[in-house]
Structures are given as structure tokens and as C-alpha cells.
């Protein structure tokens, strides 16, 4: 079995996990939620195994390199980190509802990687610009950051969905969500975690750019968009810590921040720049 086959299966495993979590939340079936957790664990393990196998395959082909070199490989890595993060959050908070909002994202990312006709899953040799140890550090840190922001995004959506007031006065789907205070705090912690990794990702990218092109910052569209993302989350952190913003406004900023992440990731490929190897193809 090749890594591509395993990773295609993982897409459906994540899909099943998302369905189970949603069923557990909507129909109030704890068993479905528990099955969702175990399905996610299997999905994340398969995802990690697929990445490792792909690495081994590239060495067998004589062009060995870490599987972090194109859009397909980055999406696969992103899904894996996302699944691990939401499983950890689920374990630490004991709330499976959160996963109902994040597991679909992992499934979507994998589906886009595996099923989109524009994305090649072939293992390709590294072009000269990518032959650097900074590639691994840069891609790993960036995508841990992106995955954390994705979880924060899920939490912020939940926050906006959750009705105000005590759980006692609430009915239905909203009542089964964690309290607004918990969602707010958790999403804040995810943003802090993501911000540290985004910062490190931008910095490793800058150091790499300096060793490859002789400049650490060149206002290339990808660089600029990562900085725009950084500005948005920096605004969120300052508004929250220093100006006492809470709740809805922070949730909206976190959603805007994740939109910027998405644009940095996908949208920039529509613009001219040096990061074209992240492009569809």
C-alpha cells in the first residue's frame, strides 16, 4: 500500500470522525462522540503513518526528502497537526463538542489534498531553492501555527453560536456547548500558541531567505500576508490583554485572523511571488 492510498483513506476516516462528533452533539449521543474520538485517533495515526511512509518512499526513489515540499504534503501535515491538537484539547477539557467544529476542518484539508484534480500527490524531487534544512523548520512551525489558529477559529465560531446566559436557561444545541467563558479562554490560549509558532515560522522563513537570496525580508506577497496575519493576531492579543476586549469582538477578530491565514496559505498563490512552489500543480 502506498502512502497516497493510506492518506486517501485517512480523508474518509476524518470524515467519519467529524460525522460521529456532530451526531454526538446534535442527537445527544455520548457513544457517537466517544466513537468520534477513537476514529480521530485512528485517523491521526494513519495520517502520521502516511507521512512517514511517504518519507521512506522518497528515499526509495533516490530523491529522499522530508515530505513537506509542496501543497499536497503541507495539507497532509496540516491535517495531522490539527487532529493532534483537537484531540489534546478534547482530552484536557473533556469536551467532545469542540471537536465537532474542528474535525470537519481536518477532513476538508485532506479532501482538498487527495481529491482535488489540481493537486498532484506525486513525490517530486526538490528544486535547488528548497534544498535547505530551514525548509523543515519553516514548514513545521508555520503549520503548527496554522493548525492552532484553525482550532481557535472553530472555538470562535462556537462562541458566536453559543447563546448568552447560564446553561440552565438554554435549550438544545447551544446548551451542550461549553460555557462562553471556557470557549473564550480556550480560544485565547490557542491564539497564543499559534502566535508563538507563526512568529517562529516567519522568523525561520526569514533566516532561510537570507541564506538563499541574501535578504531576510523582501515584501514578497507571501511574506507580506504572513505579516498581515501576524498584525491581526497581535491586535487581538493587545486588545484582549490591555484593552480588556472579551467575547464577541475577540471571536470576530479570531475569525478574521483565520481568514488571513487561509489567504496566506492559498490566496497568495494567485499573486506573483517566490513561494510559487506552494502553488496548485
Amino acid at each position, binding site marked *: 500500500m502506498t502512502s497516497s492510498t493510506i492518506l486517501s483513506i485517512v480523508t474518509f476516516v476524518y470524515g467519519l470522525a467529524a460525522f460521529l462528533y456532530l451526531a454526538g452533539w446534535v442527537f445527544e449521543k455520548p457513544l457517537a462522540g466517544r466513537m468520534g474520538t477513537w476514529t480521530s485517533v485512528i485517523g491521526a495515526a494513519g495520517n502520521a503513518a502516511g507521512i512517514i511512509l511517504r518519507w521512506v518512499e522518497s528515499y526509495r526513489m533516490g530523491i529522499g526528502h522530508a515530505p513537506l515540499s509542496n501543497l499536497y504534503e503541507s495539507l497532509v501535515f496540516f491535517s495531522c497537526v490539527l487532529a493532534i491538537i483537537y484531540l489534546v484539547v478534547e482530552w484536557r477539557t473533556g469536551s467532545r463538542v469542540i471537536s465537532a467544529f474542528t474535525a470537519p476542518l481536518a477532513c476538508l484539508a485532506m479532501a482538498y489534498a487527495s481529491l482535488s484534480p489540481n493537486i498532484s500527490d506525486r513525490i517530486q524531487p526538490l528544486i*535547488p531553492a528548497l*534544498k535547505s534544512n530551514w525548509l523543515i523548520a519553516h514548514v513545521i512551525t508555520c503549520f503548527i501555527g496554522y493548525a492552532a489558529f484553525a482550532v481557535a477559529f472553530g472555538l470562535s465560531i462556537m462562541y458566536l453560536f453559543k447563546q448568552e446566559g447560564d446553561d440552565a436557561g438554554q435549550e438544545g444545541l447551544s446548551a451542550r456547548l461549553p460555557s462562553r467563558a471556557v470557549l473564550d479562554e480556550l480560544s485565547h490560549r490557542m491564539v*497564543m500558541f499559534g502566535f508563538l509558532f507563526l512568529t517562529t515560522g516567519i522568523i525561520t522563513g526569514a533566516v532561510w531567505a537570507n541564506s*538563499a537570496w*541574501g535578504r531576510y525580508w523582501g515584501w514578497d506577497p507571501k511574506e507580506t500576508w504572513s505579516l498581515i496575519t501576524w*498584525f491581526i493576531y497581535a*491586535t487581538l492579543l*493587545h486588545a484582549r490583554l490591555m484593552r480588556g476586549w472579551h467575547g464577541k469582538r475577540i471571536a470576530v477578530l479570531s475569525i478574521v485572523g483565520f481568514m488571513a491565514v487561509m489567504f496566506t496559505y492559498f490566496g497568495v498563490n494567485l499573486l506573483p511571488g517566490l513561494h510559487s512552489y506552494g502553488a496548485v500543480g
Partner: protein
Amino acid sequence: MGRKAAADGPFTQIWKFFSSVKLTVVLLLTLAVTSIFGTLIPQMGNPAQYVAKYGEFLYRLFSLLNLFDMYHSWWFRLLIMLLTANIVVCSIDRLSSLWKIVFTKKPRFNPKQFHKVPTQVDFKMDAPLEKVRDTYASYLAKAFHYSRVEPSGKGVCIYAEKGRWTRLGVYIVHLSVVLLLVGGLIGSLFGFEGFVNIGEGDTVDHIRLRPGNQVQALGFSIRCDDFDVSFYDSGAPKEYRSTLTILEDGKKVLTRDIIVNRPLRYRGINIFQASYGTLPSNSVKLRFTDRASGMVYQVRAVIGKPVALPENRGTLVINRYNPSSEFRGHPIGEAFEATLKIKGKPDQEILLPLRFPSFDKMRRGDLVIAVAGFDQRYYTGLQVTRDPGVPVVYAGFIIMIAGCFITFFLCHERVCVELVPAGDKTRVTVMGTSNKNKFGMRRKVAHLGEKLSRLKT
């Protein structure tokens, strides 16, 4: 407020303006939004293309707003300067009061502050107060950076804390941002960025700057000994490699291979593999065919030097190589231009296209001349930069990561363990606060309570 502002001097008012976090939020969002323009409009392109793309009116408007090189425009720099001033003033403003709190010898503890915390751990210890106090005091002294015992209303309080210094974390991040900007400024004042193409075997001692195309002397010479490009089976490039020799006053100093991602650094100047191309070699293999006898002669000719024609007919000089030659308005691709000097005839300019070996037949001469072989040599395209600000920027990078980690994940934790005598037993209350991560602190207090209740007295 209005009266007070009027009473303040202009300096105080400016200081107040820059010490506002509202300003930070506004500046960060403004920078985020304006930065988008530069990613949508290609930067530093040529005016003709801009006019074609946006039309005359928008072109003028965008030029007026410096949108074609917006990241170096006065207003973008002003925004960055305002943000820097904001960061510096905010940090000084808050640090001056924080400094005393952080570097105090005897931290102040306020019992009321602890009693407000919702989660407290209560239990009873089966020992008299003095014994419990001594055991706990020595345990907390080990587990925390600072601790002290103080009598309280009904019994004793043991205060302990750690991580007071982590309150400085956010200022470490601010310092790093300032370092990045200072490093960037040093780079733009004292650094340069340029490029140079060197043919295999050629030597240069100057480069062209970007932007502006001015000449910049290097103070030493670079010779390209060799350039190689290798490809994968798929046709994708695998490696670009230049062998460079550095010469000082004509003397060889060092020879090194550079590839993409492995530049050569010499005397503060960095030399990067950036591009490559081909140059004509200065020697050509020519084939002469005698129309009458059908005899074929092969001769090697060096550009600019005459070669003898067969059977003593005269000489031929190859004048130059033209990569995109034309014949009567039709492009004929790569060709050599030559002068034919046949005895008893006027000199004749002829074209020898590489793609059409029988082109010269059209001349209807006694000899048909064609290019039989032509070696190309590579030139290597080097990016040459100097940036004395890099060490400052890198220091900023390291400090920024460390500062973010401290700010987000370490906190100033304070606990208060209150001991109240209850007969021959002791009632223990464990309370704790932290400057961030309230949820995490609850878990820690619970954990500490459990540890303390199990200690043997």
C-alpha cells in the same frame, strides 16, 4: 479630563498620545490593511505596464500614493515609525512602575486578594499548627522562588511565589521588535543589494546595484572558474553550482563552490547563486565546401582573428555572434556575422546562421561556408549583498521567540497557605493567584493542596 489635558505641557500630551494601547490597535490594523495593497499591485514594475493595466488615471493616482513601491514610501515608513514610538513609549511608561514590583527584595502580599479566588482547597492536618507550619514552610521554600511566613488574624499565613520576572516577558518582545527595526535601518543605510553576471573564465571587481543599476566596487575580484547545471530525469533543475575564486590584487585568496542555499561570504559581502545563462564561446568550427570539387575542409576560427580560406583563396574573419539575427526582416535565430575577403574581389559581409547550414549557398560563391560546431559557455548570475544589520536582526529574532514564550506560557504565580488552629489539629486553606492563565492556576492549586495534605509532619 479636558482641563487636565490643557494643563499638561505639549511633551506630556505627546507622551500620553503614544502611551495609548488604542493607538497600538489602530496602527496594527492600519498596517495590516494597507499592506494588502502592495500584494495586489505588483511592486516596482515599469510604468508602461502599469498604464496598460490600470489606465492613465489610476496610474497617476497610485503613483501619487506611492503604491508602486509602497513598502518604501514615506507614509508606510511613517506608520512603522509611529508604531515604534508607540512601543517604546508604552514600554517605558509601564516598565517604570513595573520595575519596582519585579525587582523588589520583599514582595508585598495582600491576603484579601487571595480570599477572592473562587477555588480554594481546604483540609485538616492531624498535627499542631507549629509543626504543620515548619513542614510547609520548608516545602514551599523549596518549591518556590520566594516564601515567607507571616502571622495572620486567626493563625499563620505562608506566602510563596515564583516567576515574578516573567512579567517582563512582553517588554522583551517589544525590545525585539525595536531591534528588528534598528537592524533593518542599519541595513538600509549601510548595506546594498546588487547582481553581476560572470562568464566562465571571466573576472569582475564591481557589481550593479538594485534598484538604480549604479556601479558598486567590491574591493576585491571574483572569478567564475566553472558553472554547472544538472537536471533530474523529469527535466526539473537539480542543482546550480558555480566554482568561484576570490582574488585580492590579482592574487588568489580562496576558491569555493556555491549552490543555492549555500552562499559564499567574504569580507562582509555575501555572494549567492541566483541565475545563469549562456554566452557564446570565442571559437567556432567552420566547414568549407568547395562547390566545384565537392571537397570539405574543417577549420577552427577564433572570433576577430582571420582564418585562411582553402586553396589560398583569401581570408575570413568572424566578427561577432548575434543571438537573434535577421535576414531581410526575417528572424533566423543565432548566427555569426563574418567578413569574407577573397583575393581580387571586394570584401563581403556574410551571415552564418546556426540553424541553416546551407544558408550560404544562396551567395552562389565558389565556397559554401557553414558553422559546423560552436561551443557555448555558461555565465553565472550572482546576487551580491551586504547587510551589516543582520546580526542585530537575528538577535531580535531570538529575543522575540524567547519573549513570546515567556509572555504566553510562563506566569507569575503566588500562593497563600493559611493555617488556623482547630483544637490539636490544623485547618489548612490553599489559595493561589496568577497574572494569567486562571484555569491553569486552579489546577495547580488543587495539585498543591493534594501534595501538602500528604506531607508527613
